[in-house]
């Protein structure tokens, strides 16, 4: 059997039983990367392990998570050559769990700005199921690496759907944890009040294993929650009897691709047949999620990206005065989408516009959160599509930012509300593109997500499908 095809927990079992050596796993993976990544372009950098450890199960890391001494560039020219002098907390935890950290940096949209991984200074990643299509984004490299068996598992970050949407497009499992569940220390910030690091894995069990490692309070992150972390593998329960699942009517309206709709409806029926109680619910402020998100997220991004000025690190365009250095460095260093978002964010925070945009957006954000609070009083979780369409063609939406933004329409509310959500494979379109089922729960109820996702997964075969490359 080819080792690279294994899930992380399968590989771990084999190593424990002495049926495989960690070194072999790395070699198998390296061979796999050599043979397929020229087609997928999931990685922006890959090399030998940087720490020698017999326990290692290689993990792909999105290029916006700081790794000490290893380039961390957010797929942006402005961070060219940037080697952080410190590890992100998740990396420290992975090392502490006896897992080696490799220089396996996955492609992404520059600074996580995008839904297709086309906005990368290293060129787009390709969807392993159809190389002409995007893998989704912004954690598209992480998702494509896992889906094409070039990684056993991966870390991504999710600000508006950046883990779940690519997981959906690539037919794998992607979890956006509750805001505050996983430390953001060392994650290069896009929108600080929305960002979360999370796992992209081949199945739900791997997702629980990785969460056991990375979740927990961190004194270096004032927004991380000081709430005990359960053993998530205990949620791998193949049973949803009596689980109350809400179906938000606002998620099944105009704009949803008919084949996606069909797959989701079948998945809901499956859950029902497994004993879940299905009821229709309403999240009335759903239609405002996209505009609210693009105000809040760009406002924070405009400020978070201000530090990339050529003074201390990364790119510096030399000129004869300071202001010109700022302008030319940022002009040359940022891609088009980054510039668009910085401009948008700067605008909505400007004097005279703040109240009309930013302040109002914060108010609506609270309403969106209250929608969820209400629904979770009567439901254990909510089930919906992860994305309105399957993966689209490379170049199809690059000229139309608005239609690109709408591909996150089902994932954005979750970030605004700070709740956890998972995407699991739930079917394929006729043309062979994966479809993802999204499950959402109330804050710190990841266990409910895992139970529902695991039950669905164990009673379907979708997650076993692999693209032919």
């Amino acid at each position: 059997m080819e080792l690279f095809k294994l899930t992380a927990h399968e590989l771990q079992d084999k190593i424990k039983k002495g049926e495989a050596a960690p070194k072999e796993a790395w070699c198998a993976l390296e061979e796999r990367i050599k043979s397929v990544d020229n087609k997928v372009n999931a990685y922006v950098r890959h090399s030998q392990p940087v720490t020698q450890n017999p326990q290692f199960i290689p993990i792909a890391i999105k290029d916006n998570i700081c790794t000490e001494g290893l380039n961390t560039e957010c797929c942006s020219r402005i961070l060219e050559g940037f080697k952080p002098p410190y590890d992100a907390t998740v990396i420290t935890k992975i090392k502490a769990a006896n897992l080696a950290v490799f220089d396996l940096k996955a492609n992404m949209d520059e600074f996580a700005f995008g839904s297709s991984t086309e906005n990368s200074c290293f060129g787009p990643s390709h969807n392993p199921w159809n190389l002409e299509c995007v893998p989704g984004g912004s954690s598209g490299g992480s998702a494509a690496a896992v889906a094409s068996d070039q990684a056993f598992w991966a870390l991504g970050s999710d600000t508006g759907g950046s883990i779940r949407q690519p997981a959906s497009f690539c037919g794998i499992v992607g979890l956006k944890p509750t805001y505050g569940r996983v430390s953001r220390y060392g994650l290069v910030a896009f929108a600080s009040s929305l960002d979360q690091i999370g796992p992209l894995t081949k199945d739900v069990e791997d997702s629980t294993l990785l969460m056991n490692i990375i979740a927990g309070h961190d004194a270096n992150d004032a927004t991380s929650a000081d709430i005990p972390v359960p053993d998530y593998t205990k949620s791998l329960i193949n049973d949803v009897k009596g689980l109350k699942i809400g179906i938000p009517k606002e998620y099944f309206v105009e704009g949803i691709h008919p084949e996606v709709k069909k797959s989701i409806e079948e998945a809901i029926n499956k859950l029902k047949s497994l004993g879940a109680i299905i009821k229709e619910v309403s999240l009335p402020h759903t239609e405002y999620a996209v505009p609210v998100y693009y105000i809040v997220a760009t406002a924070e991004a405009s400020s978070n990206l201000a530090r990339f000025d050529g003074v201390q690190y990364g790119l510096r365009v030399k000129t004869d005065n300071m202001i010109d250095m700022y302008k030319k460095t940022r002009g040359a260093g940022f891609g088009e989408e980054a510039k668009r978002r910085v401009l948008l964010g700067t605008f909505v925070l400007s004097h005279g516009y703040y109240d009309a945009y930013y302040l109002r957006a914060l108010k609506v954000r609270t309403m969106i959160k209250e929608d969820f609070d209400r629904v979770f009083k009567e439901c254990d979780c909510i089930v919906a599509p992860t994305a309105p369409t399957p993966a689209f063609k490379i170049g199809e939406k690059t000229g139309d930012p608005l239609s690109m933004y709408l591909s996150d329409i089902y994932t954005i509310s979750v970030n605004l509300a700070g709740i956890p959500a998972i995407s699991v494979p739930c079917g394929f379109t006729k043309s062979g593109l994966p479809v993802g089922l999204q499950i959402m729960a109330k804050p710190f109820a990841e266990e409910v997500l895992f139970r529902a996702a695991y039950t669905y997964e164990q009673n379907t075969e979708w997650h076993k499908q692999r693209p032919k490359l």
Partner: protein
Amino acid sequence: MKYETVIGLEVHLHLNTRTKAFCACSTEFGSKPNSQTCPVCLGFPGSLPVYNKTALDYAVKVALALNCQVQEYTKFDRKNYYYPDLPKNYQISQYDLPLSLAGFLDIEIDGKIKRIGITRVHMEEDAGKLIHKGNVSLIDLNRAGVPLLEIVSEPDISSPEEAHEYLSCLKSTLEYLEVSDCDMEKGSLRCDANISLRPHGEKKLGVKIELKNMNSFKAVKDALAFEAERQARALDEGETLVQETRLWDDKQGATVTMRTKEGSQDYRYFPEPDLPPFTITKARIEEVRLALPESPKEKRLRFIRDYGLSDYDAKILTSSKKDAIYAEEVLKNFKSEAKKPAVNWLIGPMLSEANARGLSLSGLKVSAHDLCVLIGFVERQEVSNLSAKSVLTEMIDSGKSADVIIKEKNLVQVSDTGQLESVVQEVINANPKSVADFKAGKGNALMFLVGQAMKKSQGKANPKVLQDLFKRRLIDA
């Protein structure tokens, strides 16, 4: 035309916490450039701030000492602007929900109490320092992230002198809390001023001018005085003033335009998402209030009550906390009901020695016990006032105790008439002209004779005893 001057002051205060506001780096002043930095205060990508709880406690102390209302719910905001000394290109500050509001400070103007309102006291972080060398600029980020308080006064100050008094009073209040070294030279206390003029009786405020770059309280006073005059002249000549920021140039003794309002920045404040808003409980506020140390005013009143000091003396001795603590030690050590001699020594010789050396009273390193020993010699008339002053100087210079120096130099006054009789006789014999002058009623002659006798006794004779002896010999004879 006569104008009314309206002044408001903005004071920035470094808190002397061991570590910075949002990371564990040291705040020590004067270290090697950039030696006290980490990914957080360097603003590296992915780093996050975590608030220093000691800094918050200090901030609450200051707010309470300035009679402010500490807000139970408060948050941080980002103030966005580009400058190379600001590594994130935003400063973590407080905007619409500051730590505290609506306080006041009472100052004394011509013997009358005037209450100056304090608009707000809020928390923020300091920026780094730029060092310009030739055509390059170097950045030292040791100061970046040091916890700062901004103390904003109401425009209740009506003259440069009042501004000076407000600052002195504020500094003394802050020093008493021991939360800052309040050293303007090190930049741990800085002051900007806003000043406008309006015709007497006018309700509407005039055009506001912001003044920066004053490096001492005197500079603040001078800059305000210059500005009040400049604005009055401009208004008299019918000029329209524009809202602007002006820099004080100490050498020229003038203010110069830095930027006008048209060029002013939009800081795009918004809530700092990396630091959740927090609540300070009423119980916690009360706890801090109860633990507040004695204020300068409280100490002054206590000195008047407990040691019988005059208001004037008490004010001098309590203006700095260190001096007050030292003075109180001396007053306690001085074993006499009437404390005036000790007070005179403190605000006389001691203070002039301290001022001459640029030290505080306690910085002279004369122990309270030793000073009292010295004053005892004078009080018992065993050492002349003059000798005692030189003994004090030597105590400070050498660190020796008073009795050792007095013994070494053999300075104890001779008051024994038996010993002095022969000296007096010798002087009378040697100066017949002065003796005749004295007998003829010239008072000065006596002083001359006493002086001669002092010389002969090598300064040790008690001049009063000598006078008596001369009078007795020459008048009675």
